[in-house]
């Protein structure tokens, strides 16, 4: 004989079924986006929100925090907070443009390499292997040393350095997606190879690309500031986080805020993109499809 359990009992016994209305990673992604929005707002509004002219010197050097200078002043009396805000513009501008360039190159190279295969794949991947084989900083220093330190050169350098990583991230999934049934189905209705690659393969690679782009942004912030710290960044007097750090280093016992300021800014920017990357990874469920 079968027995029917009373409805209430069954309901009580069953653990609350998690209603996954909100995909995993949504919270993390939200935090990342808020952090990004805050950073972009401050940077874009830079000259408006900065309390002082970032390049104007004053006799009041290495001053501690005050109502006029919240983070004090540096060795030649410039306002640290204003320099942080304006400096962020340079650093973030280089970062975004360089990564955008690397993503475009990575997409084109990775897609053509993975989709076309054969000798194209061989040539492209071997060429990228050569770039990949150099340590990032060594390559960056070499390129800047050859071309001279300027904002365009720095952008170009960083784009070159990160293109191979992105190309590989694109190529991998393309290799498998191009064998999926819907690609053959598209081919069977007369879709051209170019349209198959761009409309039926590429969109399926977008999630890993988004995640990798965000990670690359985090790495690039670090690379840009490190190169500036080493003195091969954008030339003075315009501030950027890396050069601020290297200038303030000698006075860090006298005015710790001059070092802590840019250090926190760099950490914040890097964290933003890492949080964003992890949020995106979980939200888009990369690797679990």
């Amino acid at each position, binding site marked *: 004989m079968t027995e029917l359990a009373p409805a209430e009992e069954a309901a009580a016994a069953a653990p609350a079924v998690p209603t996954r209305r909100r995909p995993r990673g949504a919270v993390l992604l939200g935090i990342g986006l808020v952090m990004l929005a805050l950073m972009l707002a401050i940077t874009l509004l830079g000259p408006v929100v900065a309390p002082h002219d970032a390049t104007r010197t004053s006799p009041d050097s290495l001053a501690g925090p005050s109502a006029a200078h919240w983070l004090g002043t540096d060795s030649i009396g410039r306002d640290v907070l204003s320099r942080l805000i304006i400096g962020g513009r340079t650093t973030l501008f280089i970062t975004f443009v360089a990564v955008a360039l690397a993503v475009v190159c990575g997409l084109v190279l990775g897609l053509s390499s993975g989709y076309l295969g054969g000798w194209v794949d061989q040539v492209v991947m071997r060429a990228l292997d050569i770039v990949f084989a150099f340590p990032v900083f060594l390559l960056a220093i070499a390129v800047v040393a050859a071309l001279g330190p300027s904002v365009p050169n720095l952008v170009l350098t960083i784009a070159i350095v990160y293109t191979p990583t992105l190309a590989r991230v694109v190529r991998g999934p393309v290799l498998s997606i191009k064998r999926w049934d*819907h690609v053959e189905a598209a081919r*069977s209705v007369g879709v051209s190879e170019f349209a198959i690659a761009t409309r039926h393969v590429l969109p399926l690679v977008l999630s890993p690309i988004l995640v990798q782009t965000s990670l690359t942004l985090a790495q690039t912030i670090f690379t840009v500031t490190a190169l500036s710290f080493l003195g091969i960044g954008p030339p003075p007097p315009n501030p950027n986080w890396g050069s601020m750090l290297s200038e303030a280093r000698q006075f860090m016992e006298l005015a710790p805020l001059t070092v802590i300021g840019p250090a926190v800014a760099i950490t914040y920017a890097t964290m933003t993109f890492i949080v964003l990357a992890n949020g995106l990874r979980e939200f888009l469920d990369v690797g679990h499809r």
Partner: protein
Amino acid sequence: MTALLPPGTTADAAMLQVRQLTARFTTRDEAVQAVRGVSFDIARGEAVGFVGESGCGKSVTARALMRLAPEGSSVEWGGSVLFQGHELLSLPEPAMQGLRGRRIAMVFQDPMTSLNPVLSVGRQIDDMIRRHAGVSAAEARRRTVDLLGLVGIRDPARRADDHPHQFSGGMRQRVLIAMAVSCQPDLLIADEPTTALDVTVQAQILRLLLRLRQDLGMALMLITHDFGVIAGMVDRVHVMFGGEIVEHGAVDEIFAAPRHPYTRALLDAVPRLTPGGAVQ
């Protein structure tokens, strides 16, 4: 009349004439002869079945008509595929692209994976109509909605904006059929169109194919491993084994008096209700 090899041909000016077709796959360490000299004709509006076990070369034969090689393999075609006076095996690739989907179209085995998951189904059909018919986006959409209605999708105007994951397997197969017939091809190839579907849906899809074939006057090349699917669908059957056509003939004749032992084995594999009521 049922004939053993070599298969006879129907009319001398059939729409499609395949002669001594061979397909040879080469991988890094071996070469496989998947099709070994297959010849057959398909007349305008005719329905022809191809039956055989997995790996007998029936799908490769069908792909030869569209010159589609499985991605990542290199295939060497041999023989001749004459379609409406064009030799398809030597047609330049752009001309072949113009032919695929417009003159010859194909319905694939697995509807779950044969649609692009990131585009709405309407968009995928629109694209194809625009490519082949060169009409405006609005006109393409109007035709898409008509087609979705034609294959039995309810509320087609709204459903056209849905993505593949919002459709069941049977519905997706209907969408794929809509896409395949969107440019009124002369020949529709259905490669195991019902294998991935459950039995009740199978019958609906087969009825749909039958109806569309009559309404649109297409020839149908139906590929299956299941004699149960062939019955009532096609005029003639080709039985394939080991990359060759081992028997061909009118469908009732083959059912009544199979001559090749392999055909008999295939027929015996179909479960059947006996007068006693037991399934054999």
